[in-house]
């Protein structure tokens, strides 16, 4: 007990002030690549067209290096609408429809002291019935279609559907997109998205940025 307390004092404040302050870290390849030098690039997911990179398709593989380099900017978040009524408090339900595991862990990282999601009025919930937003990760798999539909149906309005990661947005390298069965309110790009990108997306969707 005492040991924990002293540790906490010694550690000081580690929590980021993002989004009001600057983000402390950003994984380079979680940002959108930018053209750096000329040359042909064989993108495995056809995300590159005329020097522009489709953020929903890019799987952060780095095959376009060195022609493209990470932009080191939080990518543009595509979203359909802003839900201001959830700006004070929002409960998130994490839904895994077929991930490699990385996206889930990046969303769960929001719980860690560096991000401290509770300071933003965010918390995870155990059932979609209590959720304001559903964070869908991974490609659409056959077995999860029915649970996904049930989860979205059982949420009360207003609700926000987040598609987190390239797999959910576009199907990525190996599957189908979530958009085949539901509309995507917010698209969080990356493979996997950096936690700061996820925070930025959530805050934008609630109209706080």
């Amino acid at each position, binding site marked *: 007990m005492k*040991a*924990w307390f002293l*540790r*906490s004092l010694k*550690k000081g404040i*580690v929590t980021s002030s993002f989004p009001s302050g600057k983000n*402390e*870290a950003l*994984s*380079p*390849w*979680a940002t959108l690549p930018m053209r750096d030098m000329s040359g042909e690039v064989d993108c*495995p997911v056809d995300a590159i067209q005329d020097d522009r990179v489709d953020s929903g398709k890019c*799987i*952060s*593989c*780095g*095959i376009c*290096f060195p022609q493209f380099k*990470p932009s080191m900017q939080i990518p543009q978040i595509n979203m359909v609408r802003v839900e201001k009524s959830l700006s004070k408090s929002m409960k998130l*339900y994490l*839904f*895994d*429809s*077929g*991930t*490699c*595991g*990385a*996206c*889930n*862990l*990046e969303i769960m*990282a929001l*719980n*860690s*002291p*560096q*991000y401290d999601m509770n300071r933003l009025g965010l918390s*995870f*919930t*155990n*059932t979609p019935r209590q959720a304001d937003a559903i964070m869908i990760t*991974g*490609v659409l*798999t*056959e*077995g*999860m279609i029915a*649970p*996904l539909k049930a*989860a979205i149906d059982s949420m009360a309005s207003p609700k926000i559907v987040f598609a987190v990661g390239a797999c959910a947005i576009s199907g*990525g*390298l*190996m*599957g189908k997109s979530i958009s085949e069965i539901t509309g995507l309110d917010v698209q969080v790009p990356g*493979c*996997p998205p*950096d*936690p700061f990108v996820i925070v930025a997306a959530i805050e934008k969707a609630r109209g706080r940025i």
Partner: protein
Amino acid sequence: MISPVRIVFEEDGKMFALRRYSEALEDFSGDLLKKRSVDLKPTEKLSLFPYGPSAGGLTESIYFSLLTSGERIEAMNYDTSFKDRKISVSGNDIPKAVLLMERINGIHSASYSSLFCDLIERSSGIEVSQEIMDLRILMMEMERISHHLFVAGRLSGGASQNIGSMNIYLLREELLRIIGKTFGHRYFFGINKPGGTGREIDVSNIYEKLESIVKEYTEIYRTLMDSRIFIDRTDSTAIIRDEISAGPVLRGFGKNMDGRSQHRYYNKLNVRISTVDSGDSLARYVVRSEEIFSSWEIIKKILERNSRFKIMEEVKMDKIQGTGEKISGYMETPSGDLSMIVSVRSGKISFFKYSSPSLWNLRVFADAMKGNNFADFYFGLESLGLCVSETGDIR
């Protein structure tokens, strides 16, 4: 004792098998391990408790059904097929297959892609330099620390050690940020390539940061082991003593077995293997914690002899043609031993089979939960460090 068979396949009417920690295929005769089938029928006294596929507390989609009288679990079943992505590796060219390999299990991508690249290299006779091997070891050991920290955080959080859990998550996030900055990606995507590496990596200034993380974890580990509550909850729950299990589960009941001890890559690195005898959740936690320390010892040796990894392409990936010969190998992922058989023919993957540690651990876990307390299910599950994504139907 003979190592259990991990992969069995049939070709030209003959059966071949690959055993745990083995690089050589052998002829297989005898009975196949039966598919685990437990009939769960609710009775007057016993009821069926469904958990999943999508429920709070689960990191990935998996379905458990527990036959329970309320307090005690009488039988348990699991179904990993819900989030099966049905990935087909064979038929793809090598660059795409490497990308797929990273995404079979995203949080163990370094282990998967390292093994895959190693097999491709062996199949086409490419000799890689010690530097590439060192980079792969470095990535796999950092991945191991990161995964073990995550499991430790989940387990201590489940045992209501929330401050301890948050302290561990804090360390893990620090580690992931170091990895992200150094390797360009928090989960090592896009680095491993057969015969080379994809990026230039500068590891000259990560030593101190990693050392402080391991040092801090040592303190947390000691404080947790002083906590009566944590010990009480994890002690003697979900006792597993099954030889077919993998990784920390195997070492959790006193088996001194680790894929790294005989592997070519880890030659001369003197991997320290820690074992605990009791086989319970606590034992697996202790094994994981000790592995964090032994991984750090390995990382230290690697960092002593390398400070920068240049882009290395000894052979262009798309030049590899392959002979069609089946090459098999293994690697110790954070969850346990991964075995894989690959063959390459005319630049494409013509055969792919693998066996993931999570599948074996899940199987023994389901048997071990019988007779356990219902509330202890969570500790047992979290102590496994399960990755559902790698249990899918991937060919």
